[in-house]
């Protein structure tokens, strides 16, 4: 049972961070990029490659992986969001981000291979640690760090306040002299960094696998809906809830009903609170 709890927390933490990445991009562009999960995948794959393939130390590989994540985030913004938002129909970004995600996934399939590959041990630890193994606690630690870090960032730093301003009202922000497009690019870069970090931290749990992207995007999406769009606390709670529900439903009902139970319960949450647990009341322009 303890194992189930810890596994649930760990996968939940991963989902939570992915949901937070969604939030970062959503807040400045009102777009739910389907490339979110692929950012984590890239972090995991390149982390494994840089450490085991190229032989760099984890201390060097981590910032490099985050750089790659930032690059991918900027690429997403440039290719899939900018033009689409400027002229396209509503929801066209679903297509463009999906297409970009597919491209990245298949490039990885061709280069990295289609088998899950091992992610190296980051801290030396014996494997018999059971529920205290780092593969569980790295993602959990990261989720806690990310949530508090983002909260600090948004509230205490100038750049964070600029992000918040753009999120709340882009027109007013522009009127105050904020370069909204540049802020958007920066937020996508930040999202990429956090996404890659998530993939790196959870690498030992998921292995370095090219097909992780879609699954993580989906799970993060569900976690975000349950927790409430736009709220990082909601992302944290939603993710942990999804992870725990999945783990416990597998334990009690077998894996056959895993998705039905966990997703079904989250649907019930939405019925009670349509904007998610911590979702802000939607302000509608009339």
């Amino acid at each position, binding site marked *: 049972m303890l194992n189930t709890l810890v596994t649930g927390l760990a996968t939940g933490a991963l989902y939570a961070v992915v949901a937070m990445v969604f939030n970062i991009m959503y807040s400045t562009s009102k777009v739910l990029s389907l490339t979110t999960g692929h950012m984590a995948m890239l972090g995991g794959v390149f982390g494994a490659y840089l450490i085991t393939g190229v032989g760099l130390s984890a201390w060097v590989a981590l910032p490099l992986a985050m750089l790659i994540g930032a690059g991918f985030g900027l690429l997403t913004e440039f290719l899939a969001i900018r033009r689409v938002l400027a002229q396209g129909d509503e929801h066209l970004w679903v297509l463009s981000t999906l297409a970009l995600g597919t491209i990245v996934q298949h490039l990885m*399939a061709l280069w990295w291979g289609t088998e899950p590959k091992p992610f190296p041990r980051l801290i030396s630890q014996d494997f018999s640690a059971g529920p205290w193994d780092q593969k569980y606690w790295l993602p959990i630690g990261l989720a806690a760090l990310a949530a508090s870090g983002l909260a600090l960032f948004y509230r205490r730093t100038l750049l964070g306040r600029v992000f918040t301003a753009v999120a709340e009202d882009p027109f007013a922000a522009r009127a105050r002299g904020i370069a909204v497009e540049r802020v958007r690019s920066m937020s996508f870069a930040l999202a990429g960094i956090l996404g890659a970090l998530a993939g790196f931290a959870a690498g030992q749990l998921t292995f370095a696998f090219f097909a992780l992207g879609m699954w993580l995007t989906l799970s993060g999406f569900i976690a975000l809906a349950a927790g409430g769009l736009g709220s990082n606390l909601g992302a944290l709670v939603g993710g942990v809830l999804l992870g725990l529900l999945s783990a416990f439903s597998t334990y009690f009902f077998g894996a056959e009903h895993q998705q039905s139970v966990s997703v079904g319960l989250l649907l019930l949450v939405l019925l009670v609170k349509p904007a998610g647990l911590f979702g802000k009341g939607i302000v509608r322009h009339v």
Partner: protein
Amino acid sequence: MQLIKRAVVATVIFLTGLTAQGQTASSEPIRIGWMASLTGPLATAAIGIDAGVRFAVEEINASNGINGRKIELMTRDTAGDPNKAATFAQQLIHADKAVFILGPVNSGEALATVPLVARTGTPNIVIGAVEELTDPKKYPRAFRAINTTTQWLTAADDYVVNSLKKKKIALVGDTTGYGTTSVRTATDEIAKARAAGAEVIMPWSAATGVLARLLNARGDAGWDAPVIGHPSLMALPIKQLLNKPSYWDNVYGAGYVSTSYDASGKLPERTQVLLDKIRPKLGGKDVDILFWWIALGYDAVKVAEHGMRSAGSTDPAAIQKALENTQNFKAVLSTLSYGPDKRDGFPDDNMAIDVANTFKDGSFKLAPR
């Protein structure tokens, strides 16, 4: 002078015309359609089989093809999607005029394409192990080149009961089939199995991630119960995913006599021959994937070739008859025998159990009996 020149030109054109005609008739290629999930989540097997298929085709074409006609291999990547597989099957048969269909590799896709191909009357070499894929009455032109799942299960059960002398088996299946990549609570499955008094763990999943997690959970918990099951347990990627190499101890996989080293460390002759022939194409070093995949792909093409040679043509009915009358066809992975009511040609006596961590150059040592 002009007249002679004109006459020469006319003769040359006439003669080239004749020979060109002759060439087209006898050198029209034999189009074979090959469907495999080359970029799906379980692509490693498909890629290995694909290597064998391509090598066989090259070999046949290098020795003047089949009755002078070269084989044109048309590959389609189904990416694990049965819908794509169904449309590609249609495309290969109707638009690309394939006279033979090989595969698909994934059973999920094959379940969708085998009836479709059968409806068009095109011969089909089945590479999936699921029982329902062959049926002498419903799919008379579908011939299987691999063993069936029953054969795998029988071999594993036989080993557990008769050699390991154990009775309580924890069966671990993967209901999501090939698609999802979710992180299973392997630690709990192992704990539950152990608490229930299981003596042997038997996983039947082709997903190396799932299998590696099971082995890691077993090892981390310090449990030494033997693990026996799907051949993928013995694949090299598993070794890399294990926390400690010792976690691969006491692990057995369903394998084949033809890809196992005998007591003196030698492979059967036909296997060794193919291994030596194909090694340069694979990089010249030791083979680092399961060799039986390559052999399976090679055999699929060879069976098709045998059918067409014996029939003397690409007429589907003639090929069906020729294959029905095939007994003891000495392929590499096995010796196949079909019959008017028999479409599963893989012999039971080729089934074996191998020891996972004896992987060397694509093959294994037989498990002790």
